[in-house]
C-alpha cells in the first residue's frame, strides 16, 4: 500500500530563479525505508516539506503536481485535517520543534496527542512507551530547554512517536546524536517500518545509513538521478558525479584508485571495512 505518493512535483521558492524540485515522482510503500541522498541544495529538505504538506503553505512559492498521503491530499484545505497525527516531520533544528509551553519532557511529548484530543489514558500510555523506546525515561521531569542537543533530538523523536504516525519524514535526524543515540533512533525507525509505517530520511551520512534503508533516492538539482538499492549507487561513480560521494571506505578506495589504477581499487567501490578487506586481501 502506498503511504506517500508524489506525482510530477515541481516546486519553486518565492523569488527563486530555479525550481527546487522539478518533476519529481516518488512512491513510498508501507513498511519501506527510503533514503533521500543528495548534495546540499539538491532538494531533499524541500521534498520532505512538500511531502508533509508544509510547502508551499508555510514557505510560500509555487507547487504543481500531486501529493498524496494515505490517498489524501495534504495540501488541500478541505482534506488535510484528516491527516492530523499521521505525519511525523522532523526538521534540522530540534529546539524549534518544541511546543514552548511544556515545562517537562513528559508534557512536551504529550503535547501532540493532547492536541489530537486523545483520552488521557491513551496519552499516558503513549508517552510512557515513547520515553522508554527512546531511552529518555530519566529525562521525563527535566525541562526540554535545559537538555543537550542530542537529548532534545530524542525528545522530538519521542514527541512524534507518541502520535503513532503512518509516515515519518526526517531531515538529518542523526545530526546532533552520539553513536548510542544514533543506534536507538535507527532501532526505533526500523521498528516503526516493521509495524507498517513508511520512513523517508534525508541525510548525507552514508556511513550511518548504509544497511538502514532498502532504497536510496539520489536527488540532483531537484530531480531524481537514481532510485534503487543503496549499495548499487554508493559503489558507483554516479554517487560522486551527481551526489555528495559515498561511504568513507568507498572514498578511500576512490582516492587510492587515482594514485594506483589497480582494477581492485576501481568502481564498484567497497562500501565498508569487511568488503574492503575481502577485496584487497592479498
Amino acid at each position: 500500500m502506498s503511504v506517500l505518493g508524489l506525482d510530477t512535483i515541481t516546486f519553486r521558492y518565492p523569488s527563486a530563479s530555479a525550481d527546487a524540485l522539478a518533476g519529481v515522482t516518488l512512491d513510498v510503500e508501507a513498511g519501506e525505508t527510503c533514503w533521500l541522498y543528495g548534495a546540499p541544495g539538491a532538494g531533499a529538505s524541500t521534498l520532505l516539506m512538500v511531502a508533509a504538506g508544509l510547502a508551499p503553505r508555510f514557505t510560500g512559492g509555487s507547487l504543481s503536481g500531486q501529493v498524496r498521503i494515505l490517498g489524501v491530499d495534504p495540501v488541500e484545505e478541505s482534506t488535510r485535517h484528516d491527516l492530523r497525527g499521521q505525519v511525523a516531520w522532523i526538521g534540522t533544528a530540534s529546539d524549534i520543534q518544541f511546543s514552548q509551553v511544556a515545562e517537562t519532557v513528559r508534557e512536551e511529548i504529550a503535547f501532540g496527542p493532547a492536541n489530537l484530543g486523545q483520552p488521557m489514558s491513551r496519552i499516558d500510555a503513549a508517552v510512557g512507551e515513547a520515553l522508554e523506546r527512546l531511552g529518555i525515561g530519566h529525562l521525563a521531569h527535566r525541562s526540554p530547554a535545559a537538555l543537550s542537543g542530542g537529548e532534545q533530538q530524542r525528545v522530538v523523536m519521542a514527541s512524534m512517536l507518541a502520535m503513532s504516525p503512518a509516515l515519518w519524514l526526517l531531515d538529518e535526524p542523526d545530526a546532533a546524536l552520539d553513536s548510542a543515540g544514533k543506534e536507538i533512533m535507527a532501532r526505533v525507525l526500523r521498528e516503526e517500518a516493521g509495524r507498517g509505517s513508511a520512513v523517508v530520511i534525508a541525510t548525507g551520512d552514508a556511513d550511518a545509513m548504509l544497511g538502514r534503508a532498502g532504497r536510496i533516492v539520489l536527488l540532483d538539482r531537484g530531480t531524481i538521478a537514481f532510485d534503487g538499492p543503496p549499495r548499487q549507487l554508493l559503489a558507483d561513480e554516479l554517487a560522486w558525479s551527481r551526489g555528495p560521494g559515498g561511504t568513507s571506505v568507498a572514498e578511500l578506495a576512490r582516492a587510492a584508485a587515482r594514485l594506483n589504477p589497480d582494477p581492485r581499487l576501481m568502481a564498484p567501490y567497497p562500501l565498508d571495512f569487511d568488503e574492503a578487506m575481502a577485496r584487497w586481501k592479498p
Partner: protein
Amino acid sequence: MTLHPFTPFVLVGGVAALAFLLPPPVGPVALYGGVLIAALAAGMGGAAVAAGLVLLPLWGFLLLLHGILPGGDGYPAAVAQGARLGAVATASIMLLRGFKPSRFLDAASSRGWSLSAAYLIVSTLQAAPRLRARAASILEAQRARGLRAGGSPWARVRALVPLSLPLVLATLTEVDDRAMALEIRGFRSPGVTRTPLDPPPTTGRDRSLRWGTLILVLAASVWRFG
C-alpha cells in the same frame, strides 16, 4: 498553594484599574505598598526590585517634571504617578515570573477556549525571555567572530547592526519553522478539543481573590465617579 492561571490576570487588571481609580496621592501609594507586601509574601521580592530598577529613571524624570521644574503639578502628583507605575509594573512582572505556560494552556483547554488564542497569549508573555536568550547566543557568536560589543559608546553603536540584524532575521525565520512544527503536532485541528493534561482547579481562594478584586474596582469606581 498555586493560584489558578487566570487569577493573576484578574489581579493585575484590578491593580491597573485601581491605580487610576484611587484618589491620589494616598490611594496609589497605598496600592503600591499593598503590591510590595504581596510580592514579599509570595516570595517574589525580586520582581519588586526589577520593577524598581526599570522605573528608576522614570521616577527621577517625574520628580523633575512635576516637582523641580516650574509649572509642574507638584511633588504629590509625581509621587502618585510614580506609585501608579510602580504598582502596575511590579504586579505585571510578578505575573510574568509566576506564569506557567502549560498550566495556562490546560486551563484554557478545559474552559473550551480556542487553542490558537491561548497560544497567542502564551507566546506573547514568553517573547521577552526567548528574545533575550537568542540575543545572548547571537552576542556570543559575534564575539567569537571578533566583534567588539563593549568599550566606547561609538563601539557599542557600531556593534548594534551585527547584533540586531541576525536577531530580527532569526526571529522571523523561527516564526515559520515553529508554525510548521506546531502544525505537524496537531495544533490546529478543527472540531477537536484539546485534552487538558492536568487541568488546574479553581479553589475558594481563587474565587475570593477574583471577586474581591472586582468588588474593590467597582467600589472605587462608585467612590470616584458616583
